[in-house]
């Protein structure tokens, strides 16, 4: 056997093995990808419009966008003031109230109603901060949806939204 023979054989084996591995990887992709949201789910995640007109001052409503609860809070003067007059630096997740509402629409707080701890839905108008209280493990959020107390690590998230008019928003 000449010395060239083994190397040619090795090359063949490596080439075959590599092509086989590429094939296996290509086959894996559809099997993985099929678990992602399907086209109808993505289409159903389209933006929604919410009319703010009927929401009374002090009322919190819940709407669903992408199967997630969205809290829309029509804040009272007292709640707005509390949210603003907090020493931001002392908060677990420091964020001024102005970063959590749209400019000129201080009375409207729109947050994703999912506790940032482990995903339960906090209850409105409960807890010590005029905000939300999560019954699962006791996290408390203030009237700006910021975490104040309990195991949750972050403030309630803000969904993408915009004011179409003073009384209408589009979420998504």
């Amino acid at each position, binding site marked *: 056997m000449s010395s060239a023979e083994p190397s040619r054989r090795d090359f063949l084996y490596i080439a*075959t093995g590599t092509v086989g591995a590429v094939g296996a990887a290509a086959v894996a992709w*559809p*099997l993985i990808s*099929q678990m992602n949201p*399907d086209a109808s789910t993505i289409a159903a995640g389209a933006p929604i419009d919410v009319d703010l007109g009927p929401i009374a001052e002090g009322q919190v409503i819940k709407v669903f966008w992408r199967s997630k609860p969205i809290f829309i809070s029509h804040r009272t003067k007292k709640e707005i003031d509390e949210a603003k007059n907090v020493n931001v630096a002392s908060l677990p997740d420091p964020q001024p109230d102005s970063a959590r509402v749209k400019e000129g629409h201080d009375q409207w707080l729109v947050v994703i109603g999912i506790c940032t701890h482990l995903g339960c839905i906090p209850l409105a108008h409960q807890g010590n901060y005029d905000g939300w209280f999560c019954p699962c493990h006791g996290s408390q959020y203030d009237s700006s949806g910021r975490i104040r107390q309990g195991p949750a690590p972050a403030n309630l998230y803000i969904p993408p939204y915009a004011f179409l008019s003073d009384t209408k928003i589009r979420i998504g």
Partner: protein
Amino acid sequence: MSGPSSYQPQNAFLKWFEARLPIIGLVHSSFVAYPTPKNLNYWWTFGGILSFMLGVQIITGIVLVMHYTPHVDMAFDSVEHLMRDVNYGWLLRYLHSNGASMFFVAVYIHMFRGLYYGSYKEPREVLWILGVIIYLLMMATGFLGYTLPWGQMSFWGATVITNFFSAIPIVGETVVTWLWGGYAIGNPTLQRFFSLHYLLPFVIAGVVVLHVWALHVAGQGNPTGVEPKSSQDTVPFTPYATVKDSFMMVVFCIVFAWFVFYVPNYLGHADNYIPANPGVTPMHIVPEWYYLPFYAILRSIPDKLAGVIAMFSSILILVFLPWLDTSKVRSASYRPLYRVFFWIFVAACLGLGYLGSQAPEGIYVIAARILTAYYFIHFIIITPLLGLIETPKPLPNSISESVLKRSGAVAALLALLVGGATFLGSTPSALAQEKQEIHETPIPPRNTWSFAGPFGKFDQQQLQRGFKVYKEVCSTCHGLKFLSFRNLAEAGGPGFTEAQAAAIAADFKVQDGPNDQGDMFERDGRVGDAFPPPTTWKNEAQARQLYSGTVPPDMSVLAKARTYERGFPWFLLDIFTQFQEEGVDYIVALMKGYEPAPAGFTLPAGGNYNKYFPSNSIAMPPPLTDGLVDYTDGTKSTIEQQAKDVAAFLAWAAEPHMEARKRIGFQVMVFLVIFAGLMYFTKKKVWADVHGHA
């Protein structure tokens, strides 16, 4: 599985582990060191292919279950949802549905291999019987699985098959009611079938383990039928058998991929794209091809109970084969008489299969009876007798001594093809003529379609025109419920822009609600909405009232749900020519097929004469007229043109991922051919020293 392992781990951890659970040693002795006869031909690779296919079916099946809903109201829709919306859903479903057929192709080759080489003979009787059990389980699993899409064939196939048990004297009806969980096939039936369809493959996997175990105890047979005498006669399983099996697996995958990507519905039935309807039985109930020989046996016996018994016996008789065969010589290579009768038997099975697919009329029934009788005669009379009267050729002393040329396998394959083709070809042309007379409707003429063939693509302009025809004409009565407006702007479709799709959607009124007051309301359609149902009828009862007892079918899958009989030999050639356009051709023909009723034909009230419609009387009045739809792209708006355009649109509607399917199919084919080539040379290199010494 064959005694204590010779495997000696070097690594300290593996030593520790092996002392506690010798699983690596088990695998090593079963699939690496295991001695395999060195003269195995390619027919012996189908065991490996079968294990591979079982794996494919289990994996794709588990994935399908993630998207399937086993409920009579949702099963059909959930399958369509899978095909349209889930990423690669069409691919996974076609892999699974065609995989079942490929599984049976492989099992039949494997079984006939066993019959030819006497693989069932002492000491492999238990191995063989376990195989028969696996085969029975496969039949049950395949049947249960075919029920799940809940189309017309699912429903009526399930009805017919479960009614086998009603043939049992006295308790038959009770048993059937118990199987159904009701007084007819219904939701309880579907749910239990689903549960069992998920269970059985794992039972199969368990019996496969036993089968392989029994194989490794008795050792593999080989084409000479002479047991290996020394290590001269064998080679280690790995790499020799591994690489050979893998090569054939890749070759098998080429066939598999051909069906999946190019003719994915060829092996199914158009009727199964019609949602199950307990009130209407399809014209011809035909089971999946792999049951056809047994179905022919069932129908050939004019007595219900006897028919069912004959059908089950035709499979169970295989269990007794090791004792029915009196010859001590295993391989047909050394049995000149048996070899002839083996091929006659193969031809008889193919013949029964063909007859099982035909309407049970006239000469077909007689032919089926003759072949059924022959089937049993082969086992009960010919097989025992041959062993007594045949003079076998002298057996070689050992495998190494045998000079069995590899051309043997090729010759056998050729013989199989030629045998099958000549049998089918010899079906008297008188049959064909008789059939022509039975046919009341002419064959729809073939059209040329841009989307036909391996590289076919939809003509976007044509789809847009076709959509216009649908919207302005068909949509009054026919729904399109599996399509959403967003689909119109998706790749591989009519090529509308997002904005155009939104504008089209806004043209339709969609029911929504309830609103805050609890009322349903109408609003303009949005891209995410499905096409709304037709406005002219609110429910099926009303439709029947309006359209002389018929319900205008939903058009989403219509192009796949209609077909016509292709006849021999076209139905075989279609596999190679990838002819898939029976449905669209039929739709075009139907649109143009309105004529005054011929003398002597009494048209029922509310009927219109159409020469292509199965009963010739269709409730739908001629829908198209020249110039009816105003084409804006300068195409002349003739009936012919409108019919073709709407048919093309429906072809896309039925298979919105067709372009992706063909594109990916081409990539897969190129890959598989290259891989098969590499595997072939690897196999040659690995086996070089063995062949050198032989």
